[in-house]
C-alpha cells in the first residue's frame, strides 16, 4: 500500500493510457455479445433480444462462409509460404555484402515501400496494370501476347495480392533478421572456414541455425496476424469480378455489417475470426515451446 501511495504520480501517468485501452479495446470485447442478440441500434445492448447461436448457425450453413473461409486461408498460406522466407533470404544476401555503402543504399531503398499506404501501393499497381496504357500490358502486347485484364480477373488476384505484399513488406522485414545475424559469434564462421565450408554452406550451417529462434518468434507473430490479412489491402483490390477469390472475413464484415446494417451477424463473423486467430497463436506458441524455443507469450 505504501508503495502505491509513493508512486501515485506514476499511476496518474498511466491512467489516461489505461483508460484508452479500456474504452476502445475492452468495451468492444464486451460488445461482442451482440453476436448472440438481434441487435437493434435504438434498443442498445441491454435492450436487444437474445437469439443464442442463431447467427453462427446461419454463418456455418451458408455457402458464402466457406468461400470466405477458403479465400482467407489461401491468402494466409501465401503469406506464410511465399512471403515469409523472402526477408530471411534478402537478409542473408545483404549479410554477404562487404561494401558498407552498397549495403546501406540497398537497405534505404528496400525500406521505402513499407512507409507507403496500401492506397498508394494499389494505385501504382493500377496505373501500371491497367488495360489502356499501363506499362505492363504494353510490354505484354509488344511481345505479341494478348493483354491481360489483371484488375478484374479472378486468376490474377492472388498473385497480385502476394506480389504487392512482397513489394511493400519484404525489405522492411529484413531489419530484425539482419540484427539477429549481426549478433552471431564471428568465431563460428572462422571455425567453419577452417573446415572448408564455402559461404553458402556457412549461411546454411551457421547463420540460419543461429537465427532460428528469431525466425520462430516472427513466425508465431505472423501466425498471430493470421486472419489480419489487411482489410485495406484486400478491400482496395476487390471488385465484382474477383470477389469469389478475394472476399475475406474482414471485407465481408465491413460489407455485411456497416454497408448492409447486419450488425449482429457480421459481429458473429468477426468473433469467429478472432477466436480462430487466438487459437492459432496459442497453438503456434505451444508448438514452438515443444520444439525447444522460447515462445512469445
Amino acid at each position: 500500500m505504501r508503495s502505491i501511495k509513493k508512486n501515485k504520480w506514476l499511476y496518474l501517468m498511466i491512467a489516461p493510457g489505461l483508460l484508452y485501452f479500456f474504452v476502445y479495446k475492452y468495451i468492444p470485447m464486451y460488445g461482442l455479445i451482440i453476436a448472440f442478440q438481434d441487435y437493434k441500434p435504438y434498443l442498445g445492448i441491454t435492450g436487444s433480444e437474445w437469439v443464442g447461436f442463431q447467427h453462427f448457425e446461419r454463418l456455418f450453413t451458408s455457402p458464402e462462409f466457406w468461400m470466405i473461409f477458403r479465400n482467407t486461408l489461401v491468402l494466409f498460406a501465401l503469406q506464410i509460404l511465399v512471403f515469409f522466407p523472402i526477408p530471411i533470404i534478402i537478409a542473408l544476401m545483404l549479410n554477404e555484402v562487404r561494401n558498407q555503402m552498397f549495403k546501406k543504399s540497398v537497405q534505404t531503398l528496400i525500406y521505402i515501400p513499407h512507409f507507403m499506404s496500401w492506397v498508394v501501393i494499389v494505385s501504382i499497381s493500377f496505373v501500371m496494370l491497367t488495360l489502356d496504357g499501363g506499362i505492363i500490358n504494353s510490354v505484354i502486347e509488344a511481345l505479341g501476347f494478348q493483354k491481360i485484364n489483371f484488375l478484374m480477373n479472378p486468376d490474377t488476384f492472388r498473385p497480385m495480392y502476394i506480389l504487392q505484399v512482397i513489394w511493400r513488406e519484404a525489405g522492411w522485414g529484413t531489419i530484425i533478421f539482419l540484427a539477429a545475424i549481426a549478433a552471431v559469434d564471428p568465431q563460428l564462421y572462422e571455425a567453419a572456414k577452417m573446415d572448408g565450408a564455402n559461404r553458402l554452406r556457412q549461411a546454411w550451417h551457421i547463420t540460419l541455425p543461429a537465427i532460428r529462434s528469431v525466425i520462430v518468434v516472427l513466425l508465431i507473430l505472423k501466425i498471430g496476424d493470421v486472419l489480419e490479412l489487411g482489410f485495406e489491402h484486400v478491400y482496395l483490390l476487390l471488385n465484382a469480378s474477383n470477389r469469389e477469390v478475394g472476399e475475406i472475413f474482414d471485407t465481408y464484415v465491413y460489407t455485411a455489417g456497416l454497408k448492409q446494417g447486419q450488425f449482429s451477424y457480421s459481429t458473429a463473423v468477426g468473433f469467429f475470426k478472432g477466436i480462430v486467430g487466438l487459437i492459432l497463436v496459442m497453438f503456434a506458441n505451444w508448438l514452438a515451446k515443444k520444439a525447444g524455443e522460447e515462445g512469445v507469450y
Partner: protein
Amino acid sequence: MVGDKSFGSRLFNFTNLTLLAIIALLCVLPFIHVLAASFTTSAELAEKRFVLFPTVWSLDAYRYIFSTDTVMRSMMISIGVTLGGTAFSMFLSTLTAYGLSRQDLVGRRFIMFFIVFTMLFNGGMIPTFLVVQQTGLLNSLAALVIPVAINAFNMIILKSFFQNLPAGLEESAKIDGCSDFGILFRIVIPCSMPAIATISLFYAVTYWNTYMHAILYLSDSSKWPVQVLLRQIVVLASGLNYDGAEFTSVPPPEITIKMAVIVVATIPVLIVYPFLQKYFAKGALIGSMKG
C-alpha cells in the same frame, strides 16, 4: 572472407550484388516512374509508356489538381490529422510507457498483460464502430485519432527503451528532489531521442496513410483525408468500384492527373524519411529484440 579472391567467391559476390541491386531497383522504380509521369504530358506517356525521365516537361497535372480545392482540402486534413494525431499519440504513449518502465510500480505485470492481450484479441470492426459511435466521434476527424491513440506495439518499444536507460540517471535526479514528471520530461525524454523520433515517425506515417478508419467513420466526403481521395480518383474512376455509387459522374481523370495525386499522397512521407532513417533501424531494433 576478407582476402578470399577465388573465382567461386568472386562469382558469388557478383551474383549477390547484382541480385540485390535488382531487388532494390524493383522496389523504387515504380515510384520513380509515377513521379516522372506526373511531370509530363499524357501524349508523351501514351507514346513512351515507361517514363523514367520525361523529355517533355509539364506541370499541367499539378496545376489542375491544385486548381480544385478538393485536393488542397484533403491535404490540409491529412496534415492536420498527422500533426495532431502524432502529438496526441506520443503524449499518451510516452506517459504510459514511462510509468510501466518503472520496476517499482505495483501491478506492472498485470497491467502489461491487460495491454498485450489487446494485441491478441479484439472486439472487431462492428463492436469498435459502436463504441466510436457512442463516444460521439462519428463523422469527426477525432475519429481518426482517438480510437487508435496508442499502438500497443509502439508503446512497448518505448517502454523497453526507457527500461534500458542507466538506472543511475533517474536515481540521482530523484536524490536531487526531482518528481516523477520531472524525471520523465527533463531526463528520460531527452536521453531517448532516437526512440522518440522513431516512434513519432511510425505514428506520423500511420496517420498520414490512414484510410480504413476514414471510410469506416467519416461519411461526410468534405472530411476525407488524401488517401481516400486518392482511392476515389485512381481506383474507383477506373470503373472498378466494388461497393458502387460512391463516385460522382465526373469523367475519369487523365492518367497524368492520377499520377500527380499519387505523388501528392506520397511526397510528405518521402520528405521526412531520409531525416529519420538513421534513427528508425536502431530504434525499432532496441524494442523488438529486448521487448
